């Protein structure tokens, strides 16, 4: 009982948020300079009168404003994200086709950055003020200042072009026709550089947060109690400090999910990773607004999903949430 209510509330809020984003999208189409129908058609449709007329009818663009809004939001809610004239396919199909690649990339990067970030943050906090700590925080500062796409380019330059260790392009080796485990290994080797370079920035974020949070919790009274019990420093750090220090890190990880998914646009662009980020980049050049907005909506949905997951994780760590809900 304790867990169902909040999750239902969360889902309800998620639907409301998506609705609001759909409405935002609608206004964005109208904010674009020029005829909304031409905007929706993108560059490809600009010349074709018939296509524009069809679009007008489909979106009810000759109808009053609020009916247009209703039609648009209705379409979105029935998962009709429109048609990409540039690519000659429904936007939803395009996105669903590309979504798995993005999920693999972002989830891997998220996992790596969170795990490494927490581990390094703990390590740094345990050696606070010592050379190892300065070194770790120094690296974190630099990663924190490095543009994602530049880190990606430099990684390609070093590990792919110069050293030839890892592929720097694509999702799998084209034309190799691997199957089974071989294919998995091939994809994994393609995944390494994109996931690492996407995760680098976030690893720095989580590391800084973990370190600061560990140091702060270490000052609290219950840590003194734990010492007064005669517990060993390692037990105190693991059982008392770390668990409490993780709470703000989890909150931050939830907040950063949006950044991570936004960052995927850059990483996928550099590595020609066939995900929705790359799709967005391609659509930018083609001025394919329908697809751009579709990707935007789906990435927001992904963020909401991430947030629900981090909320549940937070609840698992913190009994105060579990028991008072």
């Amino acid at each position, binding site marked *: 009982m304790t867990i169902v209510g909040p999750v239902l509330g969360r889902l309800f809020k998620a639907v409301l948020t998506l609705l609001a984003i759909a409405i935002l999208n609608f206004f964005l189409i109208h904010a674009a300079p020029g005829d909304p129908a031409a905007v929706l058609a993108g560059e490809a449709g600009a010349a074709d009168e018939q296509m524009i007329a069809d679009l007008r009818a489909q979106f009810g663009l000759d109808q009053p404003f609020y009916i247009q809004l209703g039609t648009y939001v209705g379409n979105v809610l029935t998962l009709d994200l429109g048609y990409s004239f540039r690519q000659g396919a429904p936007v939803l199909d395009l996105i669903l086709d590309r979504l798995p690649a993005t999920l693999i990339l972002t989830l891997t990067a998220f996992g790596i950055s969170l795990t490494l970030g927490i581990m390094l943050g703990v390590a740094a906090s345990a050696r606070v003020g010592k050379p190892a700590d300065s070194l770790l925080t120094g690296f974190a500062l630099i990663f924190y200042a490095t543009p994602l796409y530049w880190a990606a380019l430099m990684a390609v330059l070093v590990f792919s072009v110069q050293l030839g260790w890892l592929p720097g392009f694509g999702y799998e080796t084209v034309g190799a026709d691997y199957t089974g485990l071989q294919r998995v290994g091939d994809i994994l080797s393609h995944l390494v550089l994109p996931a690492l370079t996407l995760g680098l920035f976030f690893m720095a974020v989580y590391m800084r947060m973990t370190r600061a949070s560990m140091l702060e919790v270490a000052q609290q009274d219950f840590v003194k109690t734990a*010492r*007064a019990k*005669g517990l060993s420093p390692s037990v105190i750090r693991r059982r008392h400090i770390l668990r409490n220090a993780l709470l703000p890190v989890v909150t931050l990880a939830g907040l950063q999910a949006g950044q991570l998914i936004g960052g995927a646009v850059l990483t996928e662009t550099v590595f020609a990773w066939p995900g929705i980020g790359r799709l967005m980049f391609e659509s930018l050049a083609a001025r394919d607004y329908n697809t751009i907005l579709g990707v935007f909506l789906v990435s927001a949905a992904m963020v909401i999903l991430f947030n629900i997951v981090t909320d549940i994780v937070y609840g698992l760590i913190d009994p105060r949430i579990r028991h008072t809900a």
Partner: protein
Amino acid sequence: MTNPVLSIEHLSIKLPDGADRQFAVDDCSYTLDKGEILCVVGESGSGKSMTANALMGLLPEGVSVGAGRAVFEGKNILRQTEAESQDLRGAKIAMIFQEPMTALNPLMRIGDQISEVFEAHKRHTPSERRKRALDLVREVDLPDPEKIIRAYPFQLSGGQRQRAMIAMALALEPQILIADEPTTALDVTTQAQILKLILDLRKKRDMAVIFITHDFGVVAEIADKVLVMRYGKIVERGTTDAVLKTPQHDYTKHLLAAIPSGLVPQNAEVQNSPALEIKALNKVFRTGGGFMKPHREVRAIDNISLSIAKGEVLGLVGESGSGKSTLGRAVVRLVTPDSGQILVGGSDMAALSETELRRARYKVQMVFQDPYASLNPRHKILRALTDGPIAKAVPKEQARARAHELMEIVGLGADAVDRFPHEFSGGQRQRIGIARALAMDPDLIIADEAVSALDVSIQAQVLDLLRDLRSKLNLSILFITHDLRVAAQLCDRIAVMQKGKLVEIGPVSDVFLNPQDDYTKRLLAAVPGGGWGLAEAALT
């Protein structure tokens, strides 16, 4: 005295460079006998907690043992390896702390936190540890032990958490229990229960207790021997009786004199015309509430009626959560009551609109609790004293002149107006707070725990100032406090609140010496060092 459990010899504890003095503890020696309760008394900054921290090997960063020994079981425990002192902690010497709300890990069950002590010292099997934890929970009289060991700290009250802390400390039957102000954060009735628990356990287990406190009432209640500390030095020592009755050192005399005595003044004449009349006041707080969540209701003010005469000081006492502060804040409309009237000089504060209220606000002013939060750190004192009068259309020059005058009156000197709050001590800030209230020429002053955050000697000075002003200026004061001794010193009448209700109100000598309500009786009995009596001459 033949065989002490612990003997401390010429102990000095060094503070980091740049501190206000070189040693936190300076050449202190004392012994602790088996089964004895030793109280270490002092004001803040006296170094009274430092020795205990040193014994536990828990000194704060930068602070270190300079010289001296602490001999326990034939060994100097101040010069041992970290591993050795880890073995000692929790097993032979245990400690409990001041803040039960933060001293327990919020993410761990109570039972696990107790079992952990056994685990730290590698005793028993896991199931045996759980069984013993349950026994300990029973021993410290926590209700519903089976449920408590599975509970998280946030589900326990402050007193219950302190009991859980004590259970942890007792787990391995230590020879010495160090208690660092363990009851300071608790309500007076809870404090009495915890003190009794410590006394009982001492008797049962014959362990020695070092009890650190600032409260001589607690000393009278619990101590066998007393040490008085000041600036890191022991200035007086002896049996409890000797120190309390025939103090030798001036500082001890001064401290004891500063303590509100427990002697109650006789009733003073009270005029009839009221400064404040509260009629059938109600306030309910609703919290939680929201999408698919029920909300909780707390009746903070439950149908209260009372009045304060012109020139009268009414003491409003009660424990935390009794609603006494809410009542005070309702009178000044910092809290808007749900129903009822608050009549000040004929107008009903509860019924005023926002704009009318702003114009009428000067009539009731407040002196706050926290001297460090009651003044805006970015404004000079002059601004704190003149903002209000200028807003009520007093000419600027006149307001300034008055500010200078008021600073003289509260004993800080007119020049003080040009300084910033951080240049003043806590007691001085409370004086400024009083001056700020007076600057508005109010009909009534509400003092909300106005001396509670101060050390006892400073507290006495501020109380003297209030008493003095009150007789000079014929002030009407609603004096809110949790400290019955303080209330007895200053007030003409006492009102007792419990859970939002007014349970008793009457002249101070009646309430203290002949309480009618059960709760009032319990409250009075719980005050450590009790001994209520009638003062020979009532001056105020």
